[in-house]
């Protein structure tokens, strides 16, 4: 919202005050002011009033005229002018030689053979309106040669307040409310509004009015007519323009002016169309044509202003085309009302039609304002148009009063909340300057909230703290730390684990951490042939490409791998992120925090990559939990999984997740030549695993015995199991030293290292263990080859 300092000065004496400083103070104490502040009139200088004395057509140009103008000097000035509206006797704005308009300094200038000693200006050229149809037509009685800036309020400082920062301040949607804040900040008095005395019209008839719906809080109206002025006074038009509104005609301008001044939207109907004003909702939906000519769908929730049963306006949003003022309108009905803010807001959203009026109504306007606004309207109307007449008495139905809020607190409350010392006198003075009623007994305050702040904004004691402190100024606060007892701070296991996992993956395995989205991007999934699996869905995404939440990070990660195939021939990425695995029994999303890893290589075979990944996972478990992993073959159930080598990952009895190879068809779409393996584990489940800790064992001082055994077996698992079953404390280390395949099958050579902490082992006791292992395997038809190598 644009604010004119001239307008503010109507209500506060700002003489001797640095206005720029005041604006920045306003920004710090009340509402955000945009950075750019407009110094209106700064860019024009030396513009005077001129009277056109003669007009001749240019002999060679159809557009140009040769004028002689009186600018209050001894001689008339020759001017070449292209405006269509020139006429003898017309007064206009004139840029004399040496005058400045923006970057241009006016000098004698030859136009089609004739020299022009100055320039007649349009309102647009002077920045006073967007009217460029012709030169400015001054109808006020002014002597030629007078500086235009002394006639009209051209010089002004205009600043823009961020509308968002006014969301909770219905009182600041007009200049008068802003002036109240400025007055409080400047320590000056706020002048009362100059209004007409409406009681003189009491003997006139009332308008037939009835509020039939609680969504209308107050409806005030008045009839008037006999309007003789059609164009608004220049100063009024300048203010409207400076504040971002186009001047239209006097009546429209006046209602807009009132809205900008008081924040109260107003509407004027043709009285013939509103003989029986009824405010209500309709049972059935219908279409209604607003004054902008658009047919709008009205439903049973939309509050309407009606003439009897005929709707004439959408309450608080826009008038209807049928009740608009037309050429033969002689009597007008002025509406000044307040409506339920939420209802207006909902209707605005439903109609997707936001107007200057609805924007204000949405904020919960002060119902006390409606009548004052009418009185102010009548004052301005009759001041400007001496012939205008009020033709009804004020008709006012006040159905819903604003809440009377009074708040009690003491100085200790203020001290505790602020943490600083603010004098009682300062508190009283501040609150009074903002219109609050304050009484103080000792250190006890009793505060009553003014109507314009009571509709929703100020309701609790903490709101009063804000009023006191913002005017006091946060820059003036003495700041200090809080005194609080000390306690150790422990991090959640999940957090610590997550950090350590990331560190290991980044630092030890040179992996890159990525973030992706919690939903599937349909086009990306489709490009890779990854199925979008049924899951919880977004119901209102504006982007049609997203809807279904992901059940796993793996597919979103594969989309990102695809994006990076030109990055390097080998890379590894991971993400710690969240997934949703459908709904839980209680109907809430089954959300999990997961770690997903993908290894990508153009140089390595899938098997090598697969075991690299397996070892990485094993290191994470060993490093963070001092536990080993076990695996269990699983069936592929997702489109991105390869049917083979999919394994469930277990650690200390917890199912952590799965690792596998990327499905061939998906992998080929990512990169025809690269190997890709992935794993996904549940971070929350991982965090549940207790750290087994470090079990220190002193190395034996006695010699070790090393034994190599070769078995013919397809897998290592039974061998590991047999060694485990041997349950021998003397085995200090087990390793696989060789594997190979020949006609007899796969051969696995293991090396066992035996030692005893207190003595030298005998061959016999070691062989006893070895034989137990070998015979258990023998039973499973796994043969020991080449005997025992010691």
């Amino acid at each position: 919202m644009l604010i004119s300092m001239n307008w503010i000065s109507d209500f506060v004496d700002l003489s001797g005050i640095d206005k720029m400083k005041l604006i920045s103070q306003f920004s710090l104490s009340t509402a955000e002011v945009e950075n750019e502040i407009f110094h209106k009139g700064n860019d024009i200088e030396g513009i005077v009033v001129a009277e056109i004395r003669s007009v001749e057509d240019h002999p060679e140009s159809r557009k140009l005229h040769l004028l002689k103008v009186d600018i209050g000097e001894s001689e008339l000035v020759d001017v070449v002018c292209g405006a269509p509206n020139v006429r003898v006797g017309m007064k206009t704005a004139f840029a004399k030689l040496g005058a400045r308009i923006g970057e241009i300094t006016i000098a004698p200038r030859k136009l089609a053979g004739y020299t022009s000693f100055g320039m007649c200006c349009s309102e647009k050229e002077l920045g006073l309106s967007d009217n460029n149809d012709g030169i400015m037509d001054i109808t006020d009685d002014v002597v030629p040669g007078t500086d235009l800036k002394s006639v009209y309020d051209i010089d002004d400082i205009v600043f823009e307040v961020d509308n968002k920062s006014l969301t909770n301040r219905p009182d600041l949607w007009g200049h008068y409310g802003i002036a109240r804040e400025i007055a409080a900040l400047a320590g000056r008095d706020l002048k009362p509004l100059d209004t007409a005395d409406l009681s003189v019209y009491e003997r006139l008839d009332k308008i037939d009015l009835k509020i039939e719906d609680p969504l209308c809080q107050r409806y005030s109206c008045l009839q008037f007519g006999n309007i003789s002025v059609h164009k608004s006074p220049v100063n009024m038009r300048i203010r409207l323009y400076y504040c971002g509104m186009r001047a239209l005609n006097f009546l429209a301008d006046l209602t807009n002016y009132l809205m900008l001044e008081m924040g109260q939207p107003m509407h004027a109907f043709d009285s013939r169309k509103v003989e029986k004003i009824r405010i209500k909702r309709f049972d059935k939906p219908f279409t209604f044509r607003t004054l902008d000519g658009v047919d709008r769908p009205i439903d049973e929730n939309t509050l309407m202003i009606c003439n009897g049963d005929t709707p004439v306006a959408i309450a608080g949003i826009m008038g209807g085309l049928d009740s608009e003022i037309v050429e033969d309108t002689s009597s007008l009905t002025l509406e000044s009302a307040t409506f339920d803010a939420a209802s207006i807001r909902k209707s605005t959203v439903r109609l997707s039609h936001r107007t200057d009026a609805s924007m204000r109504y949405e904020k919960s306007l002060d119902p006390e304002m409606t009548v004052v606004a009418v009185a102010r309207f009548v004052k301005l109307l009759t001041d400007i148009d001496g012939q205008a007449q009020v033709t009804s008495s004020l008709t006012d139905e006040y159905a819903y009063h604003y809440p009377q809020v009074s708040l009690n607190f003491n100085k200790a409350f203020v001290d505790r909340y602020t943490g600083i010392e603010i004098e009682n006198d300062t508190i009283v003075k501040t609150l009074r300057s903002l219109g609050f009623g304050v009484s103080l007994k000792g250190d006890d305050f009793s505060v009553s909230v003014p109507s314009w702040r009571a509709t929703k904004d100020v309701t609790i004691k903490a709101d009063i703290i804000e009023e006191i402190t913002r005017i006091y100024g946060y820059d003036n606060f003495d700041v200090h730390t809080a005194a609080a007892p000390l306690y150790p701070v422990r991090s959640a296991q999940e957090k610590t684990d997550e950090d350590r996992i990331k560190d290991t993956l980044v630092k030890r395995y040179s992996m890159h951490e990525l973030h992706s989205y919690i939903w599937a991007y349909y086009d990306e999934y489709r490009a890779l042939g990854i199925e979008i699996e049924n899951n919880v869905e977004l119901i209102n995404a504006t982007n049609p490409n997203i809807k279904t939440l992901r059940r796993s990070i793996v597919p979103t990660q594969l989309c990102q791998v695809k994006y990076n195939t030109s990055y390097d021939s080998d890379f590894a990425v991971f993400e710690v992120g969240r997934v949703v695995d459908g709904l839980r029994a209680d109907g809430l999303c089954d959300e999990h925090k997961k770690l997903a890893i993908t290894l990508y290589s153009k140089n390595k075979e899938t098997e090598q990559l697969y075991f690299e990944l397996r070892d990485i996972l094993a290191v994470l478990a060993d490093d963070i939990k001092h536990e080993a992993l076990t695996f269990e073959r699983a069936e592929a159930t997702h489109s991105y999984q390869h049917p083979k080598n999919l394994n469930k990952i277990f650690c200390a009895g917890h199912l952590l997740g799965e690792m596998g190879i990327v499905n061939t068809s998906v992998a080929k779409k990512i990169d025809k030549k690269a190997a890709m393996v992935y794993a996904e584990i549940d971070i929350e489940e991982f965090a549940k695993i207790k750290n087994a800790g470090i079990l220190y064992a002193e190395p034996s001082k006695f010699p070790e015995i090393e034994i190599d055994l070769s078995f013919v077996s397809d897998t290592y698992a039974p061998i590991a199991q047999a060694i485990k079953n041997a349950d021998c404390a003397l085995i200090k280390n087990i390793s696989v030293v060789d594997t190979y395949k020949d006609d007899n099958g796969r051969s696995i050579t293991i090396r066992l290292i035996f030692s005893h902490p207190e003595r030298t082992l005998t061959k016999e006791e070691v062989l006893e263990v070895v034989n137990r292992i070998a015979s258990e395997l023998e039973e499973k038809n796994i043969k020991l080859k080449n005997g025992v190598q010691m």
Partner: protein
Amino acid sequence: MSEKTTEVRLAFLSALEAVETAEDLERIRVEYIGKKGYVTELLKEMKSLSNEEKKTFGQAVNVLKNEVNDAIAEKREALKQKEIELENSRMPEFDISMPATLSRGSYHPITLVQRQCEEIFRSMGFTVEDYSEIVSDYECFESLNIPKNHPARDMQDTYYLDNGQLLKTQTSAAQNTIYKKYRDQLVNEGKPIKAIFPGRCFRNEATDACHENTFFQMEGVMVDKNISISNLIFFMKTMLSEVFQKDIKVRLRPGFFPFVEPGFELDISCLICGGEGCPSCKHSGWLELCPCGMIHPEVLKAGGIDPEEYTGFAFGLGLTRLAMMKYGVKDIRDLNSGSLKCLDQFTDDK
């Protein structure tokens, strides 16, 4: 007989002179002092000598034997030395000017700034909390004093889910749970609630270089008996000075957020110009950084805390924005793009 020893000695010395390898040396050793070596053979000739001569000759042969032994040992050492020198000389000179190969991973920039912030707050006694991304209307709005139809809901375009839940629009959605979690410790043990909760938030809006539908925030709260606006300003200034590693000026402006009262917009002195005014702060000298305020009494109440007895402050820091400011990332979409060309640059940064 001394001629004989002299003869053998001279022959030995000349043979030793010619030795170049360990093998030659061993051969000579065997040749002279092996079981059948020349020196050993000399001793056999003693049988024919008188006792007197035996003594003299025996001594001379022993001297020779020791001499040969020592000379061989010396030569062996010299050969070893020579070999090491040879090996040393075979080592080529490396070209250290070749560029280094950096095989290293990277953290997501959000992880980096999040860790920096966490560390600062941990050092000030705050716990770090984690929270789900999918929350209820109650968590995200109702419990934060944003009832249905509140205009504040318009400011946050929310992604709603078909089960009635929603993707959290703000980390404040964790406030209620955190108050409830620590309420008893606050009331019964007098432990102030000091917590931060970083997390991912979502807004249903179109994306461009400055807007993302998925971004990170970090919320912080402190609740105790006498937490004041003055404390809030102190903590914000201290924390932000630590984050940016320089003395930051802060200023508060009134800001409207339903879950705080009073609510503030916090600005910091421009990091580029220090407050003089430059294009990056639109010549104002200030950057709008984070909303904050005193926790609204209704919000405390919803968390089971009596607002008459306790007060607190809350703030919300945009981690994504912070990361962009800190590292000069211009397009917010780069962060979730997965582009390694962008993201591999973010190595550890403590």
